[in-house]
């Protein structure tokens, strides 16, 4: 890993009752780095992201830009610049695209132009501009995912975490969304992407963590996945 750690998860562990969903797990993302976490269904990927945002009670520590934020609330972490796009998108379905986007800018300082943020989001996802007045629930799956990511970008995040953004989308739409994530990363945004299978995500990522049965079983450079027989078989095809 190069550069200053943007986020560090240190021995993060979570349980649902007696079931240990996430064993003590450590992970880092550097400033401007694109990291992908791969793992099958039930591996603990979503639990890890939820624990990182304090949506799920967890032990361990979370540091952001060197500062311990373990005791910080979920909304406090968002204010620090960590934005999670949840699996299922978490949109406000009865609100319009416009209202969803404006709510995304909830944390940006007074005086900063929401309009400028909107234009930036429309540049990345022109379709959202066409759907501006529609309710979020009336959008197609791909458009909803664009809205979820666009809304996250309204907050000017320093780290964008995404939980299986390609789930349920047509391959072409998923590829379009991942391309956009690549663009954002090239512009300097740190990205932590969780996916079950994502050959394209691996092309974008610098490093990969493999999660299985609630714990990290491998950490390697994305370029090494292809040469690893088992990983290549599970995650590239």
């Amino acid at each position: 890993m190069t550069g200053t750690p943007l986020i560090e998860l240190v021995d993060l562990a979570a349980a649902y009752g007696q079931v240990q969903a996430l064993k003590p797990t450590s992970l880092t993302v550097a400033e401007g780095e694109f990291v992908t976490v791969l793992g099958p269904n039930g591996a603990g990927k979503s639990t890890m992201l939820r624990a990182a945002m304090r949506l799920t009670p967890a032990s361990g520590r979370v540091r952001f830009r060197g500062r311990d934020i373990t005791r910080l609330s979920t909304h406090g972490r968002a204010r620090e610049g960590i934005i999670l796009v949840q699996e299922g998108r978490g949109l406000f379905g009865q609100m319009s695209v416009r209202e969803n986007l404006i709510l995304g800018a909830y944390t940006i300082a007074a005086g900063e132009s929401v309009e400028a943020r909107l234009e930036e989001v429309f540049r990345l996802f022109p379709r959202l501009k066409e759907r501006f007045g529609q309710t979020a629930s009336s959008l197609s799956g791909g458009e909803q995912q664009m809205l979820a990511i666009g809304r996250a970008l309204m907050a000017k995040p320093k780290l964008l975490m995404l939980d299986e953004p390609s789930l349920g989308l047509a391959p072409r739409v998923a590829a379009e969304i991942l391309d956009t994530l690549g663009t954002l990363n090239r512009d300097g945004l740190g990205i932590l992407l969780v996916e079950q299978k994502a050959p394209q995500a691996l092309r974008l990522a610098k490093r990969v963590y493999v999660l299985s049965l609630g714990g990290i079983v491998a950490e390697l450079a994305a370029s090494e996945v292809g040469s690893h027989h088992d990983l290549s078989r599970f995650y590239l095809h």
Partner: protein
Amino acid sequence: MPDAVQFIQSLVNGVGVGLIYGLVGIGFCVIYNASGIVNFAQGVFVMLGGMACEVLLRKFHLPLPIAFLIAVPFVALVGLLMEVLVVRPMWNRGSPLFAIILATLATQIMIERITILTVDEQPHTFQEFTLGGPLKIGAIAIPYQLFWIVGCGALMVGLLWLFFTRTRAGRALRACSQNREAAALLGIPVGAMLLLSFALSAALGAVAGILVTPMQAIAFNSGTPFGVSGFIAAIIGGFGNAAGALAGGILLGVLQAVAIVLLGAGFKNVAALTALLFVLFLFPSGLFAGLKPKAH
């Protein structure tokens, strides 16, 4: 059989009291949407609003507008204290919603007892906002206070609409009502929104109480019937749907008034509870599901 004049008169009165039920019902919805909690102390805010205003008028001889401007924030403050001292500790400990709802009921009883100790047990009223009524239209008499109820009720609904659709805090509150987890992930302080919802809801109840006290004397235990009627209004409208609660309140008020005219005063509550059962059996999502606020 009642004549047409008596019937129309009862409809007019029903709309007035129904608007009060509607405001109480909206109060239920505001807290429920922000937290999932049904605040059974909602009616006590109505009593406190009327009682506080009456005390300020009678004991301190304040002009009505000043008494109004003190009473409403005072009741909003009681709402805040209720959230901080009763609801928040239980919420933070992860108590089941059922336990929190029971705690709100206990709070209502406590506030009623405090009212007896600090004021008295007697019913209180004060004069109508505008003297000299009622307005006569043919044989129908409309008290001036009814115009105040309709006007202030409409103003409150308009202000609420602007608040929920045009302000940052209002949008955030709506976001919490739809998905609290997603709202927190955007940096919205869900806890502060819960606090705001209690203050807003208490203020709405207080306004309703001040409006209705000149027409209907308020005693320490008057909150319960208003709370029950507001609750039924909210269910008729589709629980959580503010516009539906308002419409449900008006419908309930008119229904009760018609029941009194046609069947006698004893049937007022029978009519309300029959309407409740009718809606729960046949329209469990409420009669006014289509009145949800439109996206902007």
